[in-house]
């Protein structure tokens, strides 16, 4: 049976290859034909989904074997002096899980886009980019080495740029796309540096090889003071996920990325691309595990991002922005889980979050279309009656993210929080718990304001078409059952774990506390926005200063703009001065010297015969002197001869 599986795993490269082929076809062949473009794209992603399901099934059948011996297929790609890189696919439970999640969400989003993007002039271009993104993300999760992963990492960044700026005629969309790309680039700089150091140190970028090299050859060489080499490497490599997964301080691009179409936000900025950073940390976990300082840092950054983003989300009014900050907060959870050592918790949350966040984004898109492209939640209201499917599925998503059992978010969030406390990080646990409260609060605030309350008759709402509601239903299904993989004997953690596996039973006390905080958040939102016991407007007036700071996202964007304007601007002005006056000055100086000497030397060409006759005479005198007084004494006077070493 393992042989059959190995045969199947050898075809894993088809999973990213098919959407890429679809991209090429749409971009070069079927651009004119809208129907054909979307058909090709959806067929390719559904085929990839089918293959992903088959592989995931085989992985589960393989049981413990596949955890120990992942199936790696690779070919040698680069073999130049000193640089040897392979290209290949790795099938282990982690990649199988990611394949399934990415393929599922991508296919749901593409089907949903049939309804959402209807009438858009860039239809073919949209589906081309969607295919390219799907191919890149699927390629990334199959990568066997860091360079291959980085190539696909950059490709997904490119697709994010293309899709955020999809409606390029809008200035805000263009600016947001640039901002996203440049912010992630800052992180990629650190990642690339880390990769280079890794390669020079260990001679390989392959995950398996690096893993064995680090475990057997672990040297605690101090680089700066007491900081070890591994810590420096970890910090550098972590810069990539810092940017890509929107951790503080490189989180600024994600809220602005909502300029893109809502299905794009669902796919890229909720479920898949932003988790690329978390996935990278998971793949390179052997490196981070060797450096406790790095793990501590990751946990701290993750926890801070979680609470930071959640605090901003509670005062936002744009439905997509609330969801964007929610994504930032949940990504913080995933990072914090990796930081405290809860590898399976983090990956589990990645999976469940993909389901319910994509669900909620698609639901938000459905709502936005229904109220004719308004995005302020206060312009909506009472949509529950007219949009039952959207309403119910969105409710499932809200319950999932609030950590209510038996929905998916409960199991994953509870695992993270329990592990945080059990592995000895009480502060992180407290931060996580409070953030859970905030999460429940703002998500229910969104739900109550949008779906409950009085309807606004000018909206003329109606339920969305089947192309949009079927993905909602499917994702809602996974949001319900997705968490149940934690329950059986061979549960999620059995397959996706790091190091030794111990079957941990659910700690019902801690689970109870998490549920309680979730209920508190829901209750508070209910009190404010439905029962209106405490009026929201009064709260805003009483805490107007805090409200203002939160609404403007702690003024981080303004701070960055100030830094760019003054610090970077100042430095660049100084360097500009240097370039104009010194560098150009040297070049112009050389030209001036040439011109000047030419001007002087040309005076010898008088055109008068007598001048030339004199030159002859002087030359004859010199030759005579050489012959008369000997060559040796006179060549000493010849500087060119002495320079040339002629004696």
């Amino acid at each position, binding site marked *: 049976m393992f042989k059959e599986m190995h045969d199947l795993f050898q075809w894993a490269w088809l999973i990213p290859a098919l959407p890429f082929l679809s991209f090429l076809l749409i971009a070069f062949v079927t651009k004119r034909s809208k129907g054909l473009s979307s058909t090709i794209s959806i067929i390719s992603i559904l085929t990839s989904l089918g293959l992903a399901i088959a592989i995931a099934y085989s992985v589960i059948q393989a049981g413990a074997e596949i955890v120990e011996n992942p199936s790696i297929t690779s070919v040698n790609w680069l073999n130049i002096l000193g640089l040897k890189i392979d290209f290949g696919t790795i099938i282990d439970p982690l990649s199988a899980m990611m394949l399934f999640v990415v393929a599922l969400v991508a296919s749901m989003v593409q089907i949903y886009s049939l309804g959402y993007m209807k009438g858009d002039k860039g239809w073919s271009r949209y589906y081309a980019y969607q295919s390219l993104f799907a191919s890149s993300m699927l390629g990334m999760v199959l990568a066997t080495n860091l360079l291959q992963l980085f190539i696909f990492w950059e490709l997904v960044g490119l697709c994010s740029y293309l899709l955020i700026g999809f409606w390029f005629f809008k200035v805000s969309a263009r600016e947001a796309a640039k901002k996203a790309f440049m912010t992630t680039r800052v992180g990629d700089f650190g990642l690339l540096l880390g990769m280079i150091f890794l390669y020079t140190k260990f001679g390989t970028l392959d995950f398996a090889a690096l893993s064995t090299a680090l475990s057997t050859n672990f040297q605690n060489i101090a680089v700066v003071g007491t900081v070890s080499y591994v810590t420096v490497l970890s910090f550098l490599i972590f810069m990539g996920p810092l940017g890509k997964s929107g951790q503080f301080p490189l989180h600024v691009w994600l809220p602005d990325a909502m300029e893109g179409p809502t299905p794009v936000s669902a796919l890229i900025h909720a479920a898949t691309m932003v988790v690329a950073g978390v996935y990278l940390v998971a793949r390179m976990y052997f490196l981070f595990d060797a450096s406790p300082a790095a793990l501590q840092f990751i946990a701290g950054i993750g926890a801070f991002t979680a609470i930071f983003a959640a605090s901003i989300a509670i005062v936002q009014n744009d439905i997509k922005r609330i969801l964007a900050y929610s994504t930032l907060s949940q990504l913080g959870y995933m990072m914090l889980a990796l930081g405290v050592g809860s590898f399976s918790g983090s990956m589990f949350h990645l999976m469940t979050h993909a389901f319910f966040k994509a669900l909620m984004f698609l639901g938000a898109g459905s709502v936005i279309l229904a109220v004719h492209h308004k995005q302020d939640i206060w312009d909506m209201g009472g949509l529950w009656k007219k949009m039952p499917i959207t309403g119910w599925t969105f409710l499932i998503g809200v319950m999932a993210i609030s950590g209510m059992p038996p929905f998916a978010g409960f199991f994953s969030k509870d695992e993270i929080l329990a592990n945080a406390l059990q592995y000895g990080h009480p502060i992180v646990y407290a931060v996580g718990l409070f953030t859970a409260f905030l999460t429940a609060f703002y998500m229910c605030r969104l739900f109550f304001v949008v779906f409950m309350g009085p309807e606004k008759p000018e909206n003329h709402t109606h339920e969305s078409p089947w192309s949009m509601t079927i993905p909602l239903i499917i994702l809602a299904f996974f949001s319900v059952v997705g968490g149940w993989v934690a329950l059986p004997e061979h549960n999620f953690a059995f397959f996706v774990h790091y190091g030794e596996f111990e079957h941990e039973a659910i700690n019902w006390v801690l689970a109870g506390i998490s549920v309680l905080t979730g209920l508190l958040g829901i209750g508070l939102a209910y009190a404010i926005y439905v029962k209106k016991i405490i009026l929201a407007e009064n709260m805003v007036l009483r805490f107007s200063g805090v409200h203002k700071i939160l609404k403007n996202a702690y003024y981080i964007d303004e701070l960055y703009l100030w830094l760019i304007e003054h610090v970077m601007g100042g430095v660049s002005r100084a360097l500009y001065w240097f370039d104009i006056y010194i560098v150009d000055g040297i070049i112009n100086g050389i030209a001036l010297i040439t011109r000047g000497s030419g001007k002087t030397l040309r005076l010898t*060409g008088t055109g008068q015969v007598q001048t030339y006759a004199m030159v002859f005479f002087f030359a004859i005198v010199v030759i005579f002197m050489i012959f008369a007084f000997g060559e040796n004494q006179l060549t000493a006077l010849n500087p060119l001869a002495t320079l040339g070493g002629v004696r």
Partner: protein
Amino acid sequence: MSLSNLSNLSVGLSTYLLVAAMLFCLGLYGVFAKRNMIAILMSIELMLNAVNINFVAFNRFLWNEKVDVHYVLTGHVSALFVIIVAASEVAVGLALVIAVYRNRHTTNVDELNWLKW
């Protein structure tokens, strides 16, 4: 004062060579510094004649030790050749001067500077 005391004042080879050198330098100066084309030609003649003096002086002073014959005429013949060549050269030179004068109406060598930058 007898004639033998005047031996310091006797005219040797170096005297003739010195005179010839001085004449040559005068001619050289004239070639470099004179503006009139005819004057330059005259200076060239002066140089050639200085060379003639050299030849004749060597003829007089240098046959004594080596040659057995009472007299040689090598120097004088060379000087004769130089005179002939000088004459023909003057003819050509004057023809050039006249050609230039007919074209430019000037004998000032400084004005012949069309090859100037």
